[in-house]
């Protein structure tokens, strides 16, 4: 646990640099960072979800929950503007999705670099800083040196200084995940979209990475939208939960949403939420996703 407190401390010290001083940041809750109104997405003719209303205020830490194949990643891609809405509308930082990409840090699902990838961790972080620019950087130029300093700062922020110079393919899942979070933070985003960042990490690493994300959210005011398979590692720091199921969504505080009554209504089947003595939640009776998704959506049972 000492490791966790130490990395969290580093984050507090360095996180002030995520935003330059004087950056205009809406502190009022009335400015929604991410807004979906009656939104729907179709993928290859299949309706993934519809009638989704989501409102995420700036600076909130939000979890996107739901069973496999329900369209959690799709929600993040729609917010990025990588997938078009088939109905309804979406607003991200006051703009249509896709126009705000420069201010969004994105961590896609389950990326790991295999051992044959011969690029250092800091090179991967550096791509987040200026990988989108055309042309070659002047090796001694001011911009190049600034980018180099930024990379060092980011690597310290996520507590990866010890291994950032090794080839990324040789690092463990947790180490890679930290470097990828550093990469996502590179351009001082106002929103972080994280797709199952704790997946495939062991308990210790999951707790440490969750603490890091919480610190970034709280101290720098970055809005975090995080797809999670298991809500427990982040439950205590969540402001809001978006629960996707059966083609629709329910959004609210964790205590409102993760209850037997709400989830039973959402799934239209009896579901029980049990709390363990240490405050963790267990959802029982959650239906497995049907093998063929078309069965579910072609039926008239839902929405």
């Amino acid at each position, binding site marked *: 646990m000492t*490791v966790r407190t130490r990395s969290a401390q580093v984050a507090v010290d360095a996180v002030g640099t995520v935003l330059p001083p004087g950056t205009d940041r809406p502190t009022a809750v009335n400015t929604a960072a991410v807004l979906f109104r009656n939104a729907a997405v179709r993928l290859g003719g299949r309706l993934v979800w519809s009638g989704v209303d989501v409102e995420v205020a700036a600076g909130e830490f939000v979890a996107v929950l739901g069973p496999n194949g329900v369209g959690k990643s799709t929600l993040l891609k729609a917010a*990025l503007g*990588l997938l078009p809405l088939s109905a309804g509308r979406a607003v991200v930082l006051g703009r249509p999705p896709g126009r705000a*990409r*420069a201010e*969004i840090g*994105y*961590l*896609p699902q389950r*990326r790991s*670099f295999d051992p044959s*990838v*011969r*690029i*250092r961790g800091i*090179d*991967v972080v550096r*791509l*987040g800083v*200026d*990988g*989108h*620019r*055309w*042309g*070659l*950087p002047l*090796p001694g130029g001011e911009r190049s040196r600034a980018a180099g300093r930024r990379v060092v700062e980011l690597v310290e922020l996520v507590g990866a200084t010890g291994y950032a110079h*090794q*080839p990324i393919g040789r690092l463990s899942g947790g180490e890679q995940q930290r470097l990828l979070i550093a*990469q*996502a933070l590179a*351009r001082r985003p106002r929103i972080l979209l994280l797709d199952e960042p704790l997946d495939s990490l062991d308990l210790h690493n999951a707790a440490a990475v969750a603490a890091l994300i919480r610190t970034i959210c709280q101290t720098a005011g970055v809005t975090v939208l995080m797809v999670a398979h298991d809500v427990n590692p982040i439950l205590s720091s969540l402001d809001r939960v978006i629960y996707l199921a059966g083609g629709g969504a329910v959004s609210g505080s964790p205590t409102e949403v993760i209850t037997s009554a709400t989830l039973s209504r959402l799934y239209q089947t009896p579901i029980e939420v049990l709390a363990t003595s240490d405050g963790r939640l267990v959802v029982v009776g959650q239906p497995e996703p049907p093998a063929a998704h078309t069965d579910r959506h072609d039926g008239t049972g839902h929405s």
Partner: protein
Amino acid sequence: MITAAAADAALSWNLVRDVRQMFAYSFMVNAFRAGTVVAVTAGATGWFMVLRRQTFAGHTLAVAGFPGAAGAIWLGVGATYGYFAFCLAAALLIAAIPTAGGATAGRAAESATVGTVQAFALACGFLFVSLYKGFLGGVNTLLFGSFLGITDGMVLTLTAVAVAVLAVLAVLGRPLLFASLDPAVAAATGVPVRALSVAFLIVLGSTAAEVSQITGTLLVFTLLVIPAATAQILTPRPALSLALTVLFGLLVTWAGLTVAYYSPYPIGFFITSFAFGLYLLARLAVHAHDLLGRTARTSHPAEAAA
């Protein structure tokens, strides 16, 4: 022609005299010029190709040059034009493969289509060679390369294409690296991943056409893959490994040309053998380094436990 050159070429212990003797022949000067241009271009493009794991596409583009060159000779046009026309056409064909259905599905469809294109290209090449009777000696040259008979005009064409390829790579380099390593994030930050992939295939096609003219269509990997693979084994620093790739390419090309000048055996074999030797050395060096590193690490058990 090889025997004619070899007849009055005798290796002495005076290196300066040997080199001067070699460069007295304009065909050798042109061979070195063309070899240098090709090695640099192949190094830069090959580095990205190995990183993107598109070696199979690279090989297919090179093989597409075989029917191109054979067809051009049959029609009485310069082989150079045939190489470029067919390599670029194949690049556009591979680029036209739809990548819908996710990255993995796209890649599987790509390798199957690439294989199909390659088989058809080889078959066409064989047909063109058969149509042009009395050309059989030239098949070896097309497949395994030659450094003889490179004209000033060819050197000029090769240089012009090389400058274009290197300029395009310099402009696209960083986003291309991003899109190669991490397409999902690159796309999310606004990098045009699909357009870059098409652009790179065209660059790869042009480079394959260039390299084929020296190493032959079957031995392009000698300059396109081996130097890049060797450099990427040695260092994970992008700038350094790119520089090493070009350096290795130049070294094996110059060494291959020199040895081929004094020997009756084909140049493709020499360049490939030198490159293969370097690759083996690099693997051995890294293996030895890892073994030493592991011994050092086990002597610090506290670090491993942390």
